């Protein structure tokens, strides 16, 4: 088994089991969209190769003290908890930042 720690504090794990053995990678959770992304070394996020994406840098959110996925919609700090509350019709202090 090849274990590759790609994040200092992992929020998830991806295990790929194939004919050549097993590979384990770390995933991080974006504090803004709530999605998981696989880190590659150098604070980079793996891009979607089918779309021709290359690895992009993970952006650090000082308010959340976590790495975000770096997508345009996640650059501004709107925590996932507030997004879920907003979707449920509750009032949050971030409402002016969400459609």
């Amino acid at each position, binding site marked *: 088994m090849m274990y590759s720690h790609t994040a200092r504090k992992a929020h*998830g794990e991806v*295990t*790929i089991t194939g*004919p050549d053995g097993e590979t384990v990678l770390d995933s991080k959770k974006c504090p803004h*969209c709530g*999605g998981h992304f696989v880190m590659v070394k150098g604070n980079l996020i793996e891009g979607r190769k*089918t779309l021709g994406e290359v690895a992009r840098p993970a952006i650090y959110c000082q308010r959340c003290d976590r790495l975000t996925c770096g997508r345009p919609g996640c650059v501004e700090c709107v925590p996932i908890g507030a997004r879920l509350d907003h979707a449920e019709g509750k009032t949050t202090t971030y409402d002016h930042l969400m459609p």
Partner: protein
Amino acid sequence: MSRHYGFSGSITGAANKTIVGVTATSAIRPMLKRIIISSNAAPVATNSSEWQVSRFTAAGTSTAVTPVTFDSGNPAATSICGKNHSVEPTYAGVSLLDIAHNQLATVQWRAAPDEEIVAPATAANGMGVYCVGIAGSGVAEIVSLVFAE
């Protein structure tokens, strides 16, 4: 402590085809804890496919599934589960997890405690696992997932 449930679905991989979905109610927020993507196609070939997890705002039409509870002492799941969608859900927002799967391999993703992928407690909202596209021919793909509520 959250209660855990699991179920699975199977389709022939095709672009923009949802294989399984978990729909919330106004009472609970379903939390996705684990996904396993594999294939039982024969003969084995190097077909590959891309899968994503996204939140949806309309559940579409699917074959209803009763998820299995991990603890027989727990009540039935409140979330509504479905597989093999005939009408696709209305996905909103970005993909929350992106997995490339080669038919020769099995891919498993699992979240650490309190780091699950969560959907809002709103009727008809939820999360779906769908095939974005395939390279090669579409083959039988199986997705099993574990969620908590």
